[in-house]
């Protein structure tokens, strides 16, 4: 048997030179320090993404997009198909946990300054993955075609219309018409199951490739320690096994959430019914939603919504470019300003989210 394995390995090595790759992987190591825990959240995000792909494909077997079939087919999935409720619940829960994991991953990278040279592009690709994840969430939310999703999409897309000059045209492109209708549903479906997965997979591949080539970032203070004080653990098998153990725990949490808190389907969307009370977007959009709610109708001749969108866009771009304007950390100095900005952003997001829940 061992001989057969060896022969198989040699067969591949002769053709594809995999020995170098195996060698590289076996020497990969992960720094061990008091912030090591944050290294796991990228892996957790990846695991949850894999779950999204698997459960998403399963849902596709029964889901039928359309004003007259979307809601009905999801109802069919959760009530008639064996374990349909489980698959759908896991897809919804895993989506939310994935966004949470991505946020934790991003903030931990930010505060440990892991974005600094030479990992600028890992940060930028990571930021793009966050934006894509949010778009995944927004487009997927509409697909069951229920009341909440219908109005959330109406409001969310209407904000695009507040952009001067091109807003109206852009709104029609996003909605597939002037209103949120079956055309919007088809568009979001295509985006959610074809366009986004394609782009996401490519950028994810690049992101992971960068991480593999450069290895794990080490905190600036830790980097300055004498070599004998810096501990490493091998990636294979030590780190990988810990990763897998954590993935197993996450899978259990998911199962518990899906079983005990199954995702509600709600009422079918009716374009001629008033918006239901207590309508709110998903929690990860709540801080933006709450900000827009607090803005006056006009800010300095600019429409309130557009002003909000402008602020968030500029802030997002600055956030994405942080490795390029934080020149102090790169040179090995402490940059407290970065910490203050990060703390402000974090506290702002948390406060606005809590306000969003408390004020309704």
């Amino acid at each position, binding site marked *: 048997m061992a001989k057969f394995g060896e022969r198989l390995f040699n067969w591949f090595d002769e053709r594809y030179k995999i020995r170098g790759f195996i060698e590289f992987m076996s020497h990969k190591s992960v720094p061990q320090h008091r912030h090591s825990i944050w290294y796991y959240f990228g892996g957790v995000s990846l695991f949850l993404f894999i779950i999204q792909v698997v459960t998403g494909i399963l849902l596709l077997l029964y889901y039928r997009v359309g004003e007259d079939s979307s809601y009905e087919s999801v109802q069919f999935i959760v009530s008639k198909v064996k374990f349909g409720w489980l698959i759908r619940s896991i897809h919804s829960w895993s989506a939310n946990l994935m966004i949470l994991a991505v946020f934790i991953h991003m903030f931990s990278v930010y505060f440990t300054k892991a974005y600094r040279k030479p990992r600028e592009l890992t940060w930028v690709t990571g930021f793009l993955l966050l934006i894509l994840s949010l778009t995944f969430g927004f487009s997927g939310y509409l697909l069951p075609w229920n009341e909440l999703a219908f109005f959330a999409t109406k409001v969310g897309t*209407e904000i695009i219309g507040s952009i001067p000059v091109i807003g109206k045209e852009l709104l*029609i492109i996003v909605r597939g018409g002037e209103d949120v209708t079956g055309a919007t549903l088809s568009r979001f479906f295509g985006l959610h199951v074809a366009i986004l997965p394609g782009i996401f997979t490519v950028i994810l591949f690049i992101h992971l490739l960068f991480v593999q080539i450069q290895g794990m970032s080490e905190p600036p203070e830790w980097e300055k320690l004498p070599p004998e004080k810096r501990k490493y653990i091998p990636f294979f098998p030590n780190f990988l096994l810990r990763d897998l153990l954590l993935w197993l725990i996450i899978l259990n949490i998911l199962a518990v959430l899906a079983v005990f808190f199954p995702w509600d389907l709600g009422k079918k969307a009716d374009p*001629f019914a008033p*918006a*239901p009370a207590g309508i709110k977007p998903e929690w990860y959009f709540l801080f933006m939603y709450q900000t827009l709610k607090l803005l006056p109708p006009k800010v300095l001749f600019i429409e309130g919504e557009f002003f909000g969108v402008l602020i968030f866009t500029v802030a997002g771009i600055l956030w994405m470019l942080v490795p390029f304007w934080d020149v102090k950390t790169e040179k090995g100095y402490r940059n407290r300003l970065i910490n203050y900005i990060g703390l402000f952003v974090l506290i702002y997001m948390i406060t606005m989210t809590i306000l969003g829940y408390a004020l309704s």
Partner: protein
Amino acid sequence: MVQEHRSSRRNFLNYILGFGFLGWIISVLYPIIRYIIPPKIPEAKVKSVKVGKVGDFNPGTGTIFKFGNKPGILIRLETGEFRAFSAVCTHLDCTVQYREDMKAIWCACHNGVYDLNGRNISGPPPRPLEAFRVIVRGDEIYVSKEG
């Protein structure tokens, strides 16, 4: 001299290739972008709709009705008088509703409030609701756009 001549010929070819490439990109992108923009579907301009019978609406209630492909709201005041507005919130496109407890028109999305004349009185709505004319002909209620 020959060298210069050659390099200018090379430049010329590069320009031709460059413009060719640009043209090729545009000829690929243009149809795609035009495809993404949905065609305008001509819709019959609705001027007036029949909403129902007077007896269907109790005083102090509001009902959403179809006005073309947009929702409208018909309110019967406590006095028995009818009023009708577009039910599309002027803020972000949500559908408003009548709140008996507030004696006002309310939008659940961002807590916008309009009085019973359709004027925006609190919350984010920037403009009043578009008002419709209510015509009661015998027993039947018609709602029409002004003008």
